[in-house]
C-alpha cells in the first residue's frame, strides 16, 4: 500500500507542466471544456455559413450568432434539456426510459383536454384556476406514470427497456384516444405563458439582471463557502488564483448570457402594439433612420419605432430549464438520494449491501423522470399553444442522445447534469442551424445521428487516454 501511493502521488506533482497544473488546480473537467469548445465552434460555423447565404447581423455576418437566434435556441432546447436531466439519473442508475416522448404527448393531451374541453367551458375561458389545475395535472400525471414504470421495473422485475418500450407504444395510443386524433387548442392564455411565445413570459432586462446577480452571488458564495469548509478541516486548498478564476468564469458566463438575452428586442409589431396600447407616441420623421431591426414594412406603410424599444430578457421556458439544471445538479451531488443513484449505478450489489433500498430508489428515479416529463409537457404544449398526440413523439431519442452526447455512460454510474444540458444545446444548435440554412430535416437527422456516434467515440478515446 505504501509503495503504490507514494509513487503515484509524490513525484508526479512536481513533474506536471503549466497546463496540467492549471487544470488540476481549477479542477475543470477537460471533457466538458472540449464540448463547450466544440459547441462554440459549431455556432461560429453556422453563423459564417448562414451569412454567406443571407447576410444578417450575427457576429460573423450570419443569422446564428444574433441575440434573437440564441434566445430562440434556448427556448427550443428547454423541453429536451429538462427531460435529459432526469434521463441522466436513470441511465446512471443503469435504467432507461424509452417512453418519455409518448408520456409527453399523453400528459400534454390530457392537460389540453382538461383546459380546452372541461375547465374552459365550465369555469369560463381565462379563469386563473385553469392554468393552476393544468400545471398540477401535468406534474401529477407525469409523476404517476413514471412511478408506474419504475414499479414494474423494480418490483415486477421486468427490464426497464421492455417496460418503457411498451410504454412508448401504449402511452401514445392513450394520447391518440384522448385527443381523438385531433389537435386540442388553444391552451389557456395564462398557461401559454410557460411557452415563451407571449410578452408575459419574458422577464425583461431588469429582472433578468436581478436573476444574473443572484446567480453570480450564489457562485461566489459557493466557492467562498467551500473554501471556508475545507479550511475548517485543514484540507489542502485550491490556490487563490484558481478560485478567483473559477468565480470570474462562472460570473462572466452568467452575465454574458444575460446580456445576450437582454439585447433581443421585442418583435417590432409587438412594440408597436404595446406603444399603441400604452398611448406612447413614436416621434415622427425618423422613418429614414436606421431601420434594420426596429422598423418594419407592413401594408405599404413604414412604421418606425425607434426611440422606444423593449427587450425581452430571459424567457420563462429558458429560465425553467436553467432552474431545473441547477436543482437537478444539487439533487445529484448534494443529497443522499443523488449519492445513492450514483453508487447504485456504480455497483448495485454493493449499494444493496450498504443498506440502500435500491428497488424503492428505482421507483423514485423513474417518478422523478415522470415529473420532469410533466414539466417538459407544460413547456411544449404552452409553446405550441396546442396539444396533439404528435407532440413529443420521438423525443425519447433526442433526450437519450442529449444525455449520451453529454457524457453519460450507458454502462451506468457516470454522467453529469450539466453535460446533458450542453448535449441538448449541441443537438438543438445543429438542428436550428441547419434549419436556418434551409437544409431538409433528413440532413438534420443524418448530422445529429453522426454527432451522437462521434461524441461517444471521442468520449471513449478520452477515457482510455485518462486511464
Amino acid at each position, binding site marked *: 500500500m505504501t509503495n503504490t501511493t507514494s509513487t503515484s502521488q509524490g513525484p508526479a506533482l512536481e513533474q506536471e507542466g503549466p497546463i496540467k497544473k492549471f487544470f488540476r488546480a481549477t479542477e475543470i473537467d477537460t471533457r466538458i471544456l472540449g464540448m463547450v469548445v466544440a459547441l462554440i465552434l459549431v455556432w461560429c460555423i453556422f453563423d459564417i455559413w448562414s451569412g454567406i447565404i443571407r447576410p444578417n447581423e450575427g457576429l460573423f455576418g450570419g443569422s446564428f450568432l444574433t441575440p434573437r437566434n440564441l434566445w430562440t435556441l434556448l427556448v427550443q432546447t428547454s423541453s429536451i434539456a429538462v427531460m435529459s436531466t432526469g434521463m441522466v439519473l436513470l441511465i446512471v442508475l443503469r435504467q432507461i426510459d424509452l417512453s418519455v416522448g409518448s408520456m409527453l404527448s399523453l400528459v400534454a393531451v390530457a392537460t389540453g383536454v382538461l383546459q380546452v374541453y372541461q375547465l374552459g367551458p365550465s369555469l369560463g375561458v381565462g379563469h386563473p384556476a385553469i392554468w393552476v389545475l393544468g400545471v398540477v395535472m401535468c406534474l401529477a400525471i407525469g409523476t404517476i406514470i413514471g412511478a408506474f414504470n419504475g414499479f414494474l421495473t423494480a418490483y415486477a422485475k421486468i427490464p426497464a427497456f421492455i417496460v418503457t418500450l411498451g410504454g412508448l407504444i401504449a402511452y401514445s395510443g392513450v394520447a391518440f384516444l384522448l385527443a381523438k386524433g385531433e389537435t386540442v387548442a388553444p391552451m389557456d392564455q395564462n398557461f401559454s405563458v410557460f411557452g415563451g411565445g407571449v410578452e408575459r413570459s419574458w422577464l425583461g432586462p431588469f429582472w433578468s439582471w436581478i436573476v444574473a446577480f443572484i446567480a453570480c452571488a450564489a457562485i461566489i458564495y459557493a466557492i467562498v463557502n467551500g473554501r471556508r469548509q475545507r479550511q475548517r478541516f485543514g484540507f489542502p486548498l485550491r490556490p487563490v488564483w484558481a478560485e478567483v478564476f473559477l468565480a470570474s468564469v462562472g460570473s462572466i458566463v452568467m452575465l454574458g448570457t444575460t446580456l445576450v438575452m437582454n439585447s433581443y428586442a421585442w418583435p417590432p409589431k409587438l412594440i408597436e402594439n404595446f406603444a399603441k396600447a400604452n398611448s406612447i407616441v413614436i416621434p415622427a420623421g425618423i422613418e429614414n433612420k436606421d431601420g434594420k431591426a426596429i422598423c418594419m414594412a407592413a401594408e405599404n406603410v413604414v412604421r418606425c419605432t425607434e426611440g422606444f424599444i423593449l427587450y425581452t430578457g430571459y424567457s420563462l421556458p429558458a429560465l425553467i430549464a436553467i432552474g431545473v439544471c441547477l436543482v437537478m445538479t444539487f439533487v445529484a451531488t448534494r443529497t443522499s438520494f443523488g449519492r445513492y443513484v450514483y453508487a447504485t449505478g456504480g455497483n448495485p450489489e454493493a449499494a444493496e449491501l450498504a443498506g440502500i433500498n435500491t428497488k*424503492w430508489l428505482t421507483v423514485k428515479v423513474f417518478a422523478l423522470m415522470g415529473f420532469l416529463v410533466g414539466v417538459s409537457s407544460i413547456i411544449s404544449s404552452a409553446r405550441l399553444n396546442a396539444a396533439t398526440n404528435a407532440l413529443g413523439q420521438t423525443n425519447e431519442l433526442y433526450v437519450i442522445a442529449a444525455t449520451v452526447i453529454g457524457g453519460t455512460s450507458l454502462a451506468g454510474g457516470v454522467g453529469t447534469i450539466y453535460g446533458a444540458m450542453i448535449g441538448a444545446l449541441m443537438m438543438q444548435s445543429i438542428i436550428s442551424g441547419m434549419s436556418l440554412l434551409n437544409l431538409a430535416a433528413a440532413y438534420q437527422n443524418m448530422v445529429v445521428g453522426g454527432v451522437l456516434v462521434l461524441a461517444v467515440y471521442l468520449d471513449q478515446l478520452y477515457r482510455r487516454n485518462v486511464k
Partner: protein
Amino acid sequence: MAKTPAKKTTAAKKISKPVAPETHETPVAVTGSQTFKQTRAQPEGIPLIEMKEISIAFGGIKAVDHASINLFPGEVVGLLGHNGAGKSTLIKVLSGAYKRDAGSIHVEGKEVTINNPRDAKGHGIETIYQTLALADNVDAAANLYLGRELKTKMGTLDDVAMEAECRKVMHRLNPNFRRFKEPVMKLSGGQRQSVAIARAIHFNARILIMDEPTAALGPQETAQVGELIKQLKAEGIGIFLISHDLHDVFDLADRLVVMKNGKVVGTASTKDVDHDEVLGMIIAGKCPPGAIPGPGAMRN
C-alpha cells in the same frame, strides 16, 4: 432513506415467521453430551452472536443445512470449508444479504430479526465482503458513509465532514493514503481493501465479518490486516474470519468451525487441533478428538 418503514416491515415479519421447530438433533444435545470439551472449546458467558439451526436453500439445493455457530466478545472464529461448503452463505444470512428459510439469530442472548443489510448494521454487525462491495465510481469518503451519510443542518450531504472523518480513519489504517478525491476504481487492490475495512470498523461494529480479507493482498498488506484484527480483538469486537488459508486461521483465530455440504462438521479451539486434522475435517468431514462434532461430521 425510508428507515422507519423498513423497521416496521421487519417487525411484522417477526410475528409471521416463528423460529424453526426443533425437530432435528440440536447442537445443544450434541455439545451437552461432551460438556468437558465444551469448556475447553469455547469461552463461557453469553455469546455475542448465536446462530441456531440456520437453513437456506436455493432452488432445492440446501446451501446451508441446520447450521449453528456462535461468537464471543473479543474472539476470532475462523470459518473453514471448500468452495460451496456454505460458509459464505451462512455469513451472508448474518449480514442480511440473504434471507434464511429457517433458524434464529441471537445477539447477546436476545433473538433479533435480520432481513436485510440495514437490520444487520442496526445490531452492530459489519461485513467486509470478498468482493469488497464498493461503489467503484465514487470516492473513498462516499463509500465509507454509503447508506448513512453525514448531513449538514440543511439536510444536504456534508462532504467536507465526511472527508475529514474518512481522512482520520484511513490515517489509522493506511497512513500513506492520500487519494481522497478519486473514485475507488482508480485505487490499488490494497487501497480498496483498506477502504472496505474502514467502512466496516468505522461505525463501532461489535461483530465483524471478514470474508477472505487477505485474498487479494501481498504479504506486507496481509500482515497489516493481521495486526488490525489483533487490535480489534483487543477492543472486544467479535470477528468471523472466512478464509481458505489455514495458516491465517491458525495465526489469528481462537476457534474454528469447519463446514461441508452446508453442514457444520465440527468446532474446535485452534489449540486443540493441528493442520492435518483440520484438513481432514475440510476434505473428508472427519472430526478429530479435539473437536466437537456437528451434524455434518462423518459417522464412524
